[in-house]
């Protein structure tokens, strides 16, 4: 790239993607949010408070762990895992909910709503609402409530109300519709904490900024551990794409770093049961922004499928769509079966049970590692831990 990377525009566009495709009722709320966020990031007190909570409450910085047995298994580049699975609540999601809940408090909002797929964002939202004494309603697809029962119980224990969504595919897409409808109805007193780099501007930018800490720490830790400021490859899974944006963004201008996003292929990109948005999607509008979308030939939103509830989404963040367009990030599909095999492999070799989402990034090592050299470094964003997925994983281990 010849020009420095800067996005989004004032109107919330990353190249041709992004924007604010929402009902008129939400426009004043988005403008209010944009102004509050701009003021917050300029306010040293806000930044100090955010950093202190990440340290004292979330447990950051998370380690960058050298995966020695996984490295030996492939016998090629050195593999490091960025351990977001060690964050409080078990995934990177809380980096963002801490930031947004601080913003909600600055704006005087008393009621928080969120959508959740795998339940990790719902748990991270319920957690910060408990910590700050705010009312919390989480929308979750009925299908996801079945496969992520543990997280439903966690949210309820944390004092959140979990509302089952029975419309459409009864998964993350429909939970997001319902959260937006709630926001439209209670716009004056409610703050909507979106869990990924999706939705109308300023959410994709704001969520990315709150997740950038992952990449910033990775850079500093690599310097300490390897004397280098950048790896050769970074691999991260992409559903909406928040953990990937968080680790990619600080490295976008390091031309020598190959960035790879793994999307969920489900039963295979041509199986009709997939969530591989870049492999099978086309540009379109869903949940407030223009991005790549899985859709039918008549422009209805298609049902996504992935064994991982967190990747089971027919869209992707607009900044990813832009990075795909300009070729800065390579997006590759990974099937359910390959992800499940990676769960077993990494559990046995590293003593780390990864989330099914994260396993989609780890699975891609099978393809990537033979192409690497021993003097190179690969970082995988270990975005979450697999405890929440044990019911699903057990079905495959003991069918």
């Amino acid at each position: 790239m010849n020009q420095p990377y800067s996005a989004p525009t004032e109107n919330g566009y990353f190249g041709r993607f992004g924007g604010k495709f929402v009902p008129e009722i939400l426009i004043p709320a988005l403008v209010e949010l944009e102004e509050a966020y701009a003021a917050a990031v300029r306010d040293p007190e806000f930044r100090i408070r955010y950093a202190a909570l990440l340290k004292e409450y979330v447990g950051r910085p998370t380690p960058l762990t050298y995966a020695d047995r996984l490295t030996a298994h492939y016998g090629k580049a050195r593999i490091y895992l960025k351990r977001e699975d060690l964050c409080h609540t078990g995934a990177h999601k809380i980096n963002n909910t801490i930031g947004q809940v601080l913003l909600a408090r600055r704006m005087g909002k008393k009621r928080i709503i969120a959508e959740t797929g795998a339940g990790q964002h719902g748990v991270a939202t319920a957690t910060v609402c408990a910590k700050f004494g705010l009312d919390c309603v989480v929308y979750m697809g009925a299908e996801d409530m079945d496969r992520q029962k543990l997280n439903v119980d966690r949210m309820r224990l944390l004092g959140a109300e979990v509302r089952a969504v029975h419309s459409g595919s009864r998964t993350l897409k429909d939970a997001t519709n319902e959260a937006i409808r709630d926001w439209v109805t209670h716009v004056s007193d409610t703050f909507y904490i979106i869990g990924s780099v999706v939705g109308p501007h300023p959410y994709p930018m704001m969520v990315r900024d709150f997740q950038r800490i992952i990449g910033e720490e990775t850079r500093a830790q690599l310097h300490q551990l390897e004397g280098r400021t950048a790896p050769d490859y970074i691999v991260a899974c992409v559903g909406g794409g928040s953990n990937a944006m968080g680790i990619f963004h600080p490295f976008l201008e390091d031309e020598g770093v190959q960035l790879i996003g793994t999307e969920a292929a489900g039963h295979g990109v041509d199986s009709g049961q997939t969530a591989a948005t870049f492999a099978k999607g086309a540009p379109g509008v869903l949940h407030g922004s223009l991005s790549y979308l899985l859709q039918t030939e008549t422009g209805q939103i298609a049902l996504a499928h992935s064994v991982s509830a967190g990747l089971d989404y027919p869209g992707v963040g607009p900044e990813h769509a832009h990075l795909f367009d300009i070729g800065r990030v390579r997006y590759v599909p990974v099937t359910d079966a390959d992800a499940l095999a990676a769960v077993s492999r990494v559990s046995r070799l590293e003593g780390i049970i990864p989330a099914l989402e994260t396993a989609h990034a780890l699975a891609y090592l099978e393809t990537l590692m033979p192409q690497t050299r021993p003097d190179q470094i690969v970082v995988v964003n270990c975005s979450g831990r697999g405890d929440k997925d044990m019911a699903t994983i057990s079905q495959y281990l003991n069918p």
Partner: protein
Amino acid sequence: MSRLAALFATGERPIMSLFLTAGYPTLDSTVGLALRLQQAGADLLEIGMPFSDPLADGPTIQQASDVAIANGVTIPHILDMVRGIRAQSGIPLVLMGYINPILNYGFDRFFREAAEAGADGIILPDVPPEEGHAVRQACAAAGLDFILLVAPNTSDERMRRIDSESTGFVYCVSVTGVTGARDGATLRQSVDAFKDRVRANITKNPVLVGFGIRSHEDAIQVSRGLDGYIVGSALIESIRGAHPSPDWQDRVAAFVRSVKS
């Protein structure tokens, strides 16, 4: 003069606009139903183009959209329905839907073909003025009106901008919420709290108020001082209650007459 401009130029008030979902309750019912609604007193018809993820709609229109999509309705069908109505009626027809199926169909092609089929305007709840530039241009090129919305929380300044960028009429959303029938007192209270601002700031276009209206009393009280009202979810509920009994259209027409007079 456009059909919408001609309608408002008649001076008759309040204008009754009815929303029906294309392809609901069955794929072949829309043209006949539309003509029947006109006989029953509709001055203007909004034809809803079903979308799988209608985030401005409550359960009633969501469900009607799901049924219509399951019935197989597509944009070519909807354009055929517009042609079918237009062949037998001069009633103003406005298409209402979400932007994604239009992008998928082909942006310029859609607006051109909609105008050729006999549609008069378009309402897109997920395209606010910020994203409306391309739609406005395409509508102007095709000869369609592009109808924008205002809501109770829209500022005076935005109302003036929306008035200047909208043609045909301005759609006044009665409450902060999604579509769906509501209790009349809530509705009146909400509209009364911002009706003066609407009248002061929207001066170029006529204003129709919608969301939640289900009775004659609601319609008259809520639209007083404005140019008319829109009935959507309550009409869909009336269809759902009556279909498939053999006299379902008679029953729906009776509901429409009860709202009108």
